């Protein structure tokens, strides 16, 4: 018997208008309909007034509370002090240095996360080795004719970003070494890594910061005046590298044994097989986990306010108690929450996106 080839038909149309969509998705059965109604009720009763307060009755600009006459949110409090919230006490004439520093970083990161951009290797090397030097001289100064800006003048969102970015970038290599150490055959190396990781994972970051600011000066000679920011950074890096190590260890464990054996049988040394075979696969697999720890760290940086550094939360809190602008702390905290949310949401979306791409990628075996 002979069969004829069937023609290829277009997929049936699934759009039946708004009503059809609602019926299928919101009111498909009794439970779904009740859930829709309850959630809808809360959305209307809670969100309505919130939107009214935040947008409809709000005042956005002005140089004193007198500008806020509409009865809703007084965003003038935020916009009036926006510079301080972004740059801390950095001299106004030098803002451009911060802007350029973060602009370069943003361009490099966008370059790296965008698909199919060339020279990713060189850009990574630039970000890891050259950029930190540039960023140091731009932000701190002291050379190339740039005046020194002491770190106690740093603050606001730029300080938060400095803490988070340095924290994560510097913790990465330590995390890799600790993860490798924990899987090492050498008992001393292994014991050190395990003790280190378990110690730092068992201590809250806030204690680490207290220790860094109070105890570290006790151990180092008096002549060495340790910068407060540097102390906080050391604490954050020590802490973060333990978490990073555990994430990376998960990646290393997920690499099949055959990969190690193939590398060995080709005569690759331990470090070469780690650098070219194992780590590239493990890190790629662990990008979502790494982004997650980064999100956690990014939010945790706000703890530095307890040791007297003015990150964005601390600086907004300080502004709350300004006698000229009393009574606007709600606006202040909402603003801080919004800034954190924007960054964390962005990273979270990026990581989800990556996860999807890695799952369907051509080289996932």
């Amino acid at each position: 018997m002979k069969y004829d080839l069937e023609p290829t038909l277009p997929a049936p149309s699934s759009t039946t208008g708004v009503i059809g969509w609602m019926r299928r998705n919101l009111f498909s059965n009794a439970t779904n309909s009740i859930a829709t109604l309850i959630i809808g009720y809360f959305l209307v009763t809670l969100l309505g007034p919130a939107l009214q307060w935040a947008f409809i009755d709000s005042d956005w600009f002005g140089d004193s509370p007198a500008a806020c006459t509409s009865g809703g949110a007084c965003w003038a409090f935020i916009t009036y002090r926006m510079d301080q919230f972004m740059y801390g006490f950095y001299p106004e004439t030098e803002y451009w240095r911060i802007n350029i520093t973060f602009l370069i970083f943003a361009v490099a990161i966008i370059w790296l996360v965008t698909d199919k951009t060339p020279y990713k290797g060189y850009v990574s090397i630039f970000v890891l080795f050259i950029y930190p030097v540039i960023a140091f001289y731009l932000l701190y100064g002291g050379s190339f004719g740039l005046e020194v800006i002491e770190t106690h003048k740093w603050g606001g969102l730029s300080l938060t970003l400095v803490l988070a970015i340095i924290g994560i970038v510097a913790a990465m290599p330590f995390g890799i070494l600790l993860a490798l150490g924990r899987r090492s055959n050498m008992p001393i190396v292994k014991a050190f890594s395990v003790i280190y990781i378990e110690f730092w994972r068992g201590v809250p970051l806030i204690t680490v910061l207290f220790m860094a600011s109070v105890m570290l000066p006790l151990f180092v000679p008096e002549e060495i005046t340790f910068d407060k920011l540097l102390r906080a950074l050391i604490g954050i890096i020590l802490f973060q590298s333990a978490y990073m190590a555990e994430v990376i260890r998960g990646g290393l464990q997920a690499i099949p044994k055959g990969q190690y054996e193939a590398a060995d049988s080709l005569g690759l040394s331990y470090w070469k097989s780690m650098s070219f075979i194992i780590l590239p696969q493990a890190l790629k697999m662990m990008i979502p986990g790494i982004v997650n720890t980064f999100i956690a760290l990014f939010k945790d940086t706000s703890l530095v306010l307890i040791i007297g550094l003015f990150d964005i939360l601390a600086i907004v809190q300080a502004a709350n108690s300004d006698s000229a602008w009393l009574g606007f702390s709600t606006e202040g905290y909402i603003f801080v929450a919004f800034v954190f949310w924007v960054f964390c949401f962005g990273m979270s979306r990026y990581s989800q996106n990556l996860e999807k791409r890695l799952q369907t990628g051509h080289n996932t075996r």
Partner: protein
Amino acid sequence: MSTQDAREVSDKLMIELRNMNKWYGDFHVLKNINLEVKKGERIVICGPSGSGKSTMIRCINRLEEHQEGDIIVNGVELTNNLKNIEIIRKDVGMVFQHFNLFPHLTVLENCCLAPIWVKKEPRKQAEATAMQYLERVKIPEQALKYPGQLSGGQQQRVAIARSLCMNPDVMLFDEPTSALDPEMIKEVLDVMIELADEGGMTMLCVTHEMGFAKRVADRVIFMDAGQIIEENEPHEFFNNPQHERTQLFLSQIIQH
């Protein structure tokens, strides 16, 4: 059988295992193994599952460590000395049951990595050599693809090319066709037969492909329970097995 006459097997010893013993914990997995392989010899190793075939050939390039006896490869003794292990691994290529290609690298990069980083060949030269070997295993057109885009048979041929790129004196094959779909077994065996017929390469193949053994082997070795039970040239081995365990094993694989 005429091609077999063209091969030369020199008198030089390539691999020597002398009274080699290995344990996994308390489990005595290899018992007093003695084996001499001459340069250019082609050996097929067979035996029931769990008899220690993989473990034995994995000891030869130190993927597994033996505890007693000597292993000498190309005049270098395998000890804990990392330098010796390094030298031996440069001389010995290995092909695995599950290919073990590097999934994040293209076929060409898979082949070039070790020549560039272990033998310090210039990239251009390594790539040229790799293309040559990819042609020999008949997949030069796949050079820029990733392993995940290839069929099992193609992946195994890439794995063979990857090992050959290091220009080894010895090739170890650990059941290279047993993870393949039936229709792909032949393309891999053909490549191995060609390699064997060229001569010069010392080959140790763990395989149950008896046709392959009859066609290329100089010697067939039968292992059971961690021991070498019997060894003979293929004609005698298949037609006139001495040991009853060998007879049983052969009757089983011929029946199925």
